């Protein structure tokens, strides 16, 4: 199963331009496990372990204790802390 990884805000500078693609075997994972598996496949993967980042799957924010059910082609977004207004 392939997942598209997107970055928004300062974390995008640390991860480099554009998006990434990772592969995952399990459809059902905890958010913590998902972050760990993605981080291990990326060149600057440690940056996405920042506990201040929020994670969204297909544009829906995840809770930190969520158990996720993933599908091929899902988009996983790592979002830096928001600073609007």
């Amino acid at each position: 199963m392939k997942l598209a990884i997107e970055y928004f805000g300062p974390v995008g500078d640390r991860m480099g331009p554009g998006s990434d693609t990772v592969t995952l075997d399990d459809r059902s994972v905890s958010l913590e496990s998902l972050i760990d598996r993605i981080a291990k496949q990326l060149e600057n993967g440690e940056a996405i372990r920042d506990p201040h980042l929020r994670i969204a799957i297909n544009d829906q924010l995840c809770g930190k204790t969520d158990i996720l059910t993933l599908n091929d082609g899902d988009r996983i977004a790592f979002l830096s802390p928001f600073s609007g207004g």
Partner: protein
Amino acid sequence: MDSANIFLTDEPLNVTALSEGLTANPKVGAGATFTGYVRDDGELTALELRHHPIMTQTALEQIARIAIDRFGITEILIAHRYGRMEVGEPIVHIATTAPHRRPALDAVSFTIDILKTQAPFWKREWRGDTSNWVEPTREDHDKSTQWLEGKE
């Protein structure tokens, strides 16, 4: 006009034009507004706001609906810029109407405080050719938390 109006744009905000029409309802007894501008700190040359193409609109709609339900206001407008802005340009404009002043004022305060930490925007300050991202402050988090925990 719907009671929740969201306006997300990379064009300059015309604050006067945006607020027109909000007080047309005869049951409205109060209107309140807040406008945030790009502030000159002596070195700043521009401010860049980035947003999420889908989640930002959704978050602003949710914040507006919560403000309507929580404060019983008649109408709310949230207008927010993205892209590059010069010193003095409006970044955000919030306007509310209500039967009485307190809900109109409180809803504006609530909306800007929540928006700062709950709407997906990322702010970058430019000084010439160099830039730095702006992190939300402790005060931003505290204000947001106070509203969310009902301690306002």
